[in-house]
């Protein structure tokens, strides 16, 4: 019953007719491609939405030292805020799990998405795309996920294989 209701609800707005539209207020204004580009900052796990630009771990180290280190510590060691580096192999057994970008995050694209939208904390959305690529490269390299010589860009970031990529199973609804 639960599932059937969902199917009906989904099909209700997927199969639109002109008549159905006529009955709604229809007060939205069409969005232009430029407006959408300005606001659409989310990056899909396959890299959809990654902007042009690139950065290296060495460039990222400079960005990190200037913008990230006070909250995330030397080389991403954490304190006072989240630890970004280390923790590999801590997810099993009786030990305390240390969940970092390297040990836990399943997608490198999430790192770009989050850093660009929300970091640095006191000035989010202030980094250039090159700076975001660079700081992502630095954090990934500190975690041993990419080589020091690697360059992160829209072409390479989405191809990075994160150590815990296969560490997730979807919770299935009981009903």
């Amino acid at each position: 019953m639960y599932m059937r209701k969902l199917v009906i609800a989904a099909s209700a707005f997927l199969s639109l007719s002109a008549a159905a539209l006529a009955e709604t207020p229809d007060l939205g204004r069409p969005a232009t491609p430029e407006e959408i580009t300005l606001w659409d900052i989310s990056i899909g796990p396959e890299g959809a939405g990654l902007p042009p630009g690139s950065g290296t771990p060495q460039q990222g180290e400079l960005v990190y030292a200037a913008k990230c280190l006070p909250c995330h510590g030397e080389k991403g060691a954490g304190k006072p805020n989240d630890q970004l580096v280390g923790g590999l192999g801590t997810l099993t057994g009786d030990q305390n799990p240390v969940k970092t970008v390297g040990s836990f995050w399943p997608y490198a694209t999430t790192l770009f998405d989050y850093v660009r939208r929300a970091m640095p904390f006191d000035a989010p959305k202030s980094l250039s795309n090159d700076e975001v690529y660079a700081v992502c490269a630095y954090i990934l390299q500190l975690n041993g996920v990419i080589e020091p010589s690697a360059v992160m860009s829209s072409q390479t970031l989405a191809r990075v294989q994160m150590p815990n990529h296969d560490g997730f199973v979807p919770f299935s609804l009981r009903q």
Partner: protein
Amino acid sequence: MGRKRAVAGAQDLTAGNGLLDRRALLVGASLGGAAAMAPRPGFGAEELSVERWMREPGAPFVGYGQPSRFEAKVARTFASAPGTTGTGASRTPLQRLNGTITPNGLHFERHHSGIPDIDPDTHRLLIHGLVKRPLIFTLEALARYPMETRIAFIECGGNTGALYQKEPAQIDLQASHGLLSCAEWTGVRLALLLEEAGVAPESQWLLAEGADAAGMSRSVPMKAVDEALVALYQNGERVRPSNGYPLRLLLPGYEGNMNVKWLSRIKATAGPTMTKDETSKYTILLPSGKSLQFVFPIETKSVITHPSPGLTVKAAGLYEISGLAWSGYGKIARVEVSADGGKSWALAALQDPVLPKALTRFRIPWRWDGGPAVLQSRATDSSGYVQPTRAALIAERGAKTFYHFNGITSWAIGDHGEVRHVYA
């Protein structure tokens, strides 16, 4: 009659250690929360006086009313992340409230970069992605849409995370359970706005994003749209800034983090975006090392609010045990209460109206004999889901997470009436 029932005889007992029939207190006698019901000789007219406020005019009108100054301790408690203010969580004082609706100023909060000061005239909702017509809505436009009202709880997926700890945390109910609130929300059905944009059949997910500095974003499965509201009103007034002014997504029954505040963008996508919160945060690390992801529903849960740690049961006698039950799957079907640590159970009375995905208040009379007692509540919802014991929950999921704890909670009553959190 009421007094006879209040001094309950053995025939009224429905479970061990003093639990009475749920209707026992409903007959005749006036009820005052956890007030003792036995006659109290010696309380005479000599205690009455003609008070100052009976002899002089009261205060003038004010534009927006506030609680009595004597209620100042009924307040949220909060903590911020290091080096920040307004980034963290505040908690609802459930032990100081009754009924089921949370006053707007006491609704719990979880902010990732403070509370934005949004001008409603410039706020916009963009709907785009896999749609025929990407659309931008102003508040003025949305205010003209047909609206719906529903009462729904919101609970943070991290609420009661402390109950996974090895030893029972000695904290009050606000600290243990306070990331839970319930309000009457009014807004526009999200499905209606998506209809106008024309979502493509291959779109199975939505990305919802807020206009706060953190750009809080979560992927929402398309099936959630069935009950989703773009909420403009909270308990009759515009949604509070701390709860998403001027727009928030309301997904009844889904974990709080998905009910995106300051909603400014909805993108129809084929799959989940894999945002920071749905990968690195709101997942449940299992003993196997794998993590459960997309744990959307708040599963059936209950807790006794009166009494609870921090409150004291004053003297042996008759009390009303009262608490809250809720389920992200539907309505609460029944709540059972135990006073002997789960050995025996009695059915509690449910306060009408019992609404799906809303807090439900339960009550049951209890005659405390002054001896040891362990109080528990166990909720069952309309889908048949029974709230698990803490041991059963941890046996299944381990204790390496602090998300989605919904196990039975135990309060021990000590010799002096003090209430402590225990594992039983």
